[in-house]
């Protein structure tokens, strides 16, 4: 089944331009791996890059530029010997960031329901993690500032009237107060990228309540 919730054009453009930070780009590329429709839409944004490059005023290169490039022309890229498993749930490049597929993940519990895995990128402006929400459970209610991108990898969650299944991406900003809930039947695993630390408000409040005596 093809995804039904797609990447907005502004994100595709920023991704194609190369001005989107690595964390967001990881969410976009995960959706792209699962969505032929958005890959076709990406083509226009990348072609714009080509056309803009073509239209640039040429800048003189060093006098010996061609000579030094010619000296560096070795053989072509060696035949790819990249190892790929026979099948996988999590698509590349996300799987490469994790270092393996779902069964290799060492989840850390969050609150009483669910688990997470933090994913490291070179980009300090985003927070990237995998979330595992038990079937039928709400994603621990989270307040966030700024944007949040969520890509479903397995299972599904519903948010209001919308259902997000494998490959679907949800793009929420601070104005959205949402309560995503994993659909019954299977745990939901998703990639969540935010630009401010996710605060799992309800379990945080639960943890703090006894201290405050409320």
């Amino acid at each position, binding site marked *: 089944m*093809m995804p039904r919730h797609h990447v*907005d*054009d*502004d994100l595709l*453009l*920023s991704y194609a*331009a*190369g*001005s*989107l930070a*690595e964390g967001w*780009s990881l969410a976009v*590329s995960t959706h*792209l*791996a*699962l*969505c*032929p429709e958005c*890959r*076709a*839409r990406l*083509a*226009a*944004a*990348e*072609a*714009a*890059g*080509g*056309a*803009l*490059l*073509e*239209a*640039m005023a*040429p*800048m*003189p*290169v*060093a006098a010996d*530029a*061609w000579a*030094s*490039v*010619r000296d*560096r*022309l070795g053989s*072509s*890229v060696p035949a790819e010997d990249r190892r*790929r498993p026979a*099948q*996988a749930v999590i*698509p*590349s*490049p*996300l*799987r490469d960031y994790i270092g393996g597929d779902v069964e290799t993940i060492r989840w850390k519990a969050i609150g009483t329901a669910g688990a997470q895995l933090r994913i490291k*990128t*070179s*980009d300090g402006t985003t927070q990237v993690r995998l979330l595992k929400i038990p079937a039928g459970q709400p994603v621990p209610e989270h307040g966030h500032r700024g944007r949040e991108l969520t890509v479903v990898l397995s299972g599904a969650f519903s948010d209001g009237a919308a259902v997000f299944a494998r490959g679907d991406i949800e793009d929420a900003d601070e104005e959205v107060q949402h309560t995503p809930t994993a659909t019954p039947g299977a745990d939901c695993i998703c990639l969540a990228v935010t630009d401010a630390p996710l605060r799992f408000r309800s379990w945080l409040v639960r943890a703090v309540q006894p201290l405050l005596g409320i």
Partner: protein
Amino acid sequence: MSELLETVGRTRDVELFEQLFRHFAPRVKAYMARTGSAAAAEELMQETMVAVWKKSALYDRSKGAASTWIFTIARNLRIDAFRREKHPEFDENDPAFVPEAAPAADAAMENVQSVEALKAALDTLPADQVEVLRLAYFEDRSQSDIAAALSVPLGTVKSRMRLAVAKLRSALGGDTA
């Protein structure tokens, strides 16, 4: 240029590659100079052109113009050099990759033939959309940076980007939905 690049990939002909170099190197250098010093731009241009040569066998004209393919190589090297970040990309040979239901070979060929139409469409974009494209493609500015630089709300930057992409896509003969 696209045919030339494909031929270089197949024949490994250094003299043909020199023609590509003469055309693209000054443009790639100009692109790099938008975010770096002239010396860094020269070095990154050379690195880009060496990568173009090495990867040229992977270039497929049916998937896009030479300028587009070279742009993506230059873009990734720029991100690596100036931001020390990666540009995560899907892998068509990955087992979890979802291929197209029906290969749209004709649409792809159309893409290549529409490069001129795309350039024409870029020329007709309103100035405020061109400004946003310039900041995103050449100056490595994030959406919120662009909003701050132009003193407009973030939502305005997003909608200018969406309008520009919709227009470019229709110039390429694609679906505008």
